[in-house]
């Protein structure tokens, strides 16, 4: 083995410290730079080079302040870090505004007639539960932060709220009511996406009008499904015929949206899976109305509550996969990047 090959082998050993997906995209390019930078006759990486590569690999693995393009999972999480707070901000903002305008004792018929999409349960609880108010206000702050592409600010907001919650838990929830499982889960998912991905800035890069159409449909489905599943979870709201009509219309709208997006976006089976899952609570509800499905227990209903966020994540993954497929791998083993002209 001659000297350049020996040196390249040593460099590859150091580059192996980088995440696999990153290596797939950058290894050959970085190796070329390292070999071009080598002194004549050099056989081993210099200490300063080795430290620089080790430190670079460590930062890339921790992804602290680092951004990596080209990895499907990372892109999916980046889009999720942008869209999850936005999806949740809509109903949260509407509920908070309603509460400000009408106070804690808004007449139920008025509420149900004009704002059937917003959870009555949350609306009623917000008057007394300070922890819930904090969670909802925090969710709005996170949404604003991700729109401004400020990943660290969004993470700081989540950290503050979770810390307050945990501290309050130590005092037996004397100040902030109790943990809200839904918001706790959402904050956890959002924080994970913000930490493990390049964040909302990259998420914005990924969006196109097609993915926007899918996500608008997903947002509508998420909001509607959230409302319905909250009612399922806490019960007592299924006796009026108005509910059946509202949910039948929501079901119809979802089906039309699904067909439209399916035809326009070419996302194919991903959209089918996504919407089929989102329709699940509606189908269960209609089944209950006609007596085919037994009334769900609170546990079953709470399980259904987690379907929409998970499916929203699936939507993002589907979009990321779809976008990635538009830039297939190069024959030489490197991943093509947007704007790259393969040689």
């Amino acid at each position, binding site marked *: 083995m001659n000297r350049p090959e020996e040196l390249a082998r040593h460099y590859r050993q150091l580059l192996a410290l980088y995440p696999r997906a990153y290596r797939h995209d*950058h290894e*050959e*390019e*970085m*190796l*070329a*730079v*390292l*070999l*071009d*930078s080598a002194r004549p006759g050099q056989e081993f990486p210099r200490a*300063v*080079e080795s430290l*620089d*590569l*080790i*430190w*670079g*690999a460590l*930062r*890339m693995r921790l992804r602290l*302040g*680092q*951004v*990596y*393009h080209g990895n499907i999972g990372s892109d999916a999480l980046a889009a999720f870090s942008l869209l999850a707070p936005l999806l949740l901000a809509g109903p949260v903002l509407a509920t908070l505004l309603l509460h400000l305008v009408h106070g804690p004792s808004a007449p139920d018929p008025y509420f149900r007639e004009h704002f059937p999409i917003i959870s009555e349960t949350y609306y009623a609880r917000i008057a007394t539960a300070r922890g819930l108010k904090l969670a909802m206000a925090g969710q709005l702050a996170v949404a604003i932060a991700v729109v401004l592409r400020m990943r660290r600010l969004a993470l700081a907001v989540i950290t503050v709220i979770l810390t307050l919650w945990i501290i309050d838990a130590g005092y037996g929830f004397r100040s902030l009511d109790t943990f809200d499982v839904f918001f706790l889960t959402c904050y956890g998912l959002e924080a994970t996406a913000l930490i493990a991905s*390049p964040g909302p*800035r*990259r998420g914005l*890069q990924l969006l196109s009008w097609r993915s926007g159409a899918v996500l608008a449909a997903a947002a509508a489905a998420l909001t509607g499904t959230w409302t319905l599943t909250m009612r399922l979870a806490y019960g007592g709201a299924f006796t009026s015929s108005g509910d059946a009509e509202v949910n039948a219309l929501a079901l119809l709208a979802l089906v039309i949206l699904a067909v439209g997006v399916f035809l326009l976006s070419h996302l194919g089976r991903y959209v089918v899976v996504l919407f089929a899952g989102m329709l699940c609570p509606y189908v269960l509800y209609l089944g209950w109305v006609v007596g085919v499905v037994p009334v769900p227990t609170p546990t079953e209903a709470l399980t259904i509550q987690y379907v929409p966020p998970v499916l929203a994540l699936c939507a993002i993954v589907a979009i990321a996969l779809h976008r990635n497929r538009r830039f297939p791998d190069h024959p*030489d083993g*490197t991943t093509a*990047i*947007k*704007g*790259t*002209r*393969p*040689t």
Partner: protein
Amino acid sequence: MQEPSFLILTALAAGMQHGYGIITDVARISEGRVRLRAGTLYAALDRLRADELIEVDHEEVVDGRLRRYYKLSEEGEQQLAAEAARLQANATAAITRLKAARGLA
């Protein structure tokens, strides 16, 4: 903006360059004061790409080695110009005050 990022953008302001070209150009621009290593360079390039300040132009294979060429984006040009103006204003203010202080002394 950190100095390595500023120097990388400055290197790309003259036209697209590949990784090794950026390293040598940054050393030239900084008169040898800043010598980027590969790990530092690619961490910075990834960050700049995420911020949409640079983008990949094309890639080619030279002597069996892959070269990926980067170029400044429109936003990168604007940010570099803004940062350069800010640094220039700061430098001018510093020089003016130093001259004034020496004049008074």
